[in-house]
């Protein structure tokens, strides 16, 4: 994937660039709003990681508004030290697709950027999701693995749907809380782990191979064994 990072802090930018390259992405960097706008408007990217406060007269919000004004729909993830709810709302209203507050864990950033690009591509009205031998029918709301039908509670169904839509990607606990429960804060207890382990009991336990994997220090990933 080709990703543009607009971030003025050298250390943060270096850390992000290195991490993204290690994850196999092609990365461009701009350290001010003007260059960022020029690059994002003149070249094609799969995603843009955008700092809110930038030097050079054009801040992150202005940059994004200008970009959206030109009908550019490249997915944008805000990376900002402005962490209040209002700031978040402002960022999303300006056309941002996701908002991550500094300080952040790189795994969280990577997972979210990859989720963004996936969302950009395959948001079509799929009626059937398939991961390995696990199959989900969104119309009849039924799930089967191989020949066996799996009964799920509504919330378990939504959890699995989210994981299947992001199959092959790391999904963090925060992303699950936001995406499945619509909660925008972190509970102290390991609620997500408990729900994942219940889902595992139904989706993985009775079968030979497991699909739902824990990614250390990051979250979870649903993927077929052979990928």
């Amino acid at each position, binding site marked *: 994937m080709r990703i543009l990072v607009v971030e003025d802090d050298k250390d943060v930018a270096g850390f992000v660039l290195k991490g993204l390259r290690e994850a196999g992405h092609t990365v461009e960097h701009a350290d001010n709003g003007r260059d960022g706008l020029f690059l994002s408007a003149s070249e094609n990217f799969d995603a843009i990681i955008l700092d809110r406060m930038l030097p050079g007269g054009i801040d992150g919000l202005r940059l994004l508004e200008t970009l959206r004004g030109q009908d550019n729909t490249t997915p944008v993830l805000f990376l900002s030290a402005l*962490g*209040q*709810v*209002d700031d978040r709302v402002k960022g999303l209203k300006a056309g941002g697709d996701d908002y991550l*507050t500094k*300080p952040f*864990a790189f795994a969280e950033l990577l997972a979210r950027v990859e989720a963004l690009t996936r969302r950009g591509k395959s948001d079509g009205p799929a009626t059937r999701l398939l991961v390995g031998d696990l199959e989900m029918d969104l119309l009849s709301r039924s799930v089967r693995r191989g020949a066996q039908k799996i009964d799920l509670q509504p*919330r378990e169904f939504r959890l699995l749907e989210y994981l299947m839509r992001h199959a092959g990607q790391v999904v963090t606990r925060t992303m699950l809380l936001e995406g499945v*429960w619509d*909660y*925008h*804060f*972190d*509970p*102290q*207890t*390991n*609620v997500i782990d*408990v*729900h994942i*382990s*219940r889902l595992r009991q139904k989706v993985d336990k009775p079968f030979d191979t497991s699909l739902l994997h824990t990614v250390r*220090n990051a979250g979870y990933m649903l993927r077929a064994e052979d990928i």
Partner: protein
Amino acid sequence: MARTGPASASARRRRALFRSAGVRFALVYAVVFGLSAFVLAVALWYSTLGLLQHQVQNAIHNDAQTLLEHQEIGGLPSLEEAVQDRLTSSSDEDGIYLLMSATGQILTGNLDHWPAGLTRDNVWYELPVTRRGVSSVALLNVQQLPGGMKLLVGRDMQARLELRDVLRAGLIWALSLMIALGVMGALLIRSLFRRTIKDISATTSAIARGDISRRVPVSGVGDEFDELAVTINEMLDRIARLMDGVRQVSNAIAHDLRTPVTRARARLEDAALHASTKDEMQAAIDRATLDLDGIVAVFEALLRISEIEVGSRRAAFACIDLTPVLTDMDELYRAVAEEKQIVLHTEIETPLPVWADRDLIQQAVVNLLDNSLKFSESLTVISFTAKVVDGMVQIVVADRGPGIAEQDRLRATERFFRGEAARSTQGSGLGLALVLAVAQLHNGTLHLQDNHPGLRAVITIPVYKD
């Protein structure tokens, strides 16, 4: 600066006087009062005199008509007789009559001669006349009779003129008295105004100098100024509370964040000095990262609480039904409870309409459930109920854990306060502070009670009515 003469100083003082709101209000009062008094006097003047004039004119007119009828019926002799009759009967001493022939000879009447300037018929004149040698002023009207004769009928106005003078003098007196009263009233208003404003400005300037404990005195009369004083005092209370909160937070940051920062620093330094293998180094870095994450979480919780206390989140308020919100939460936490072999006993009424910020309510209830789950032993019961009691939605989370000692219960909602039982567990001591802030933002309360044993936390929020 040195060249400010006395003239410009007095001019400045004059300008300052007119810039004073008290003087302006007083002036406006005086002008309005004076104007209304003046209008009243003028109206009284004209209506009184007008009425008198009108009455006299009526009398003269009627008198003249009667005399003309005499002339029509009985001719000149009858008219002369009627005039003579009126002159002698002295029924009206002010009556003036004069009958003049076509040649200008006076036939009968009580005027010494035809008044000068009386030329047109049937027009009202007010002219000086002489009656039996006494000069006076009279209201006069002339009627043309057949044969060129003229009949003059009038009334002596001298007495009425005197009345007019008396009236004028009276009104002038009254008016000057009113102006004096108006000025006094204006001065009174100005001093009242000044006194009240002085209280407020004394208080606010004391606060500006740093004495936040000062309050505007309330007179107890219950007037608008009292209302203003009460509002200002409420505002000051709120500011004082916020400042207290900020002070508490800075103290707390100074004391409570030092510990985890010290720990993280120690780990890193220790690893830098003593780690001999890559794995040891890695482990130290991982633990330090976790410590830093913990510090960030504390920061975020603190910021969130201040954000809530400042009230800046009211924009996200809407009328929502809490039932599905709480049911979701029950579903989320039931799994965790079962994992820990704790029974979550849930009863949620429907509907529970409130004016609230959904995210904040969720977070507050999540904090209570987190707490209860953290402190509960397995095989105990946590009860999670929500119902409407006396116009308030009451959300109760009650556990059978160690609870909070009675002397600590009030302080449990302070930032960073950690009860005896909580010392050994993980946590920042911010959970209940956030719950309290959320409850207060929603005009509600948080009560911590003894569950015999355990803790019973009760959030109440007013039911939303259209």
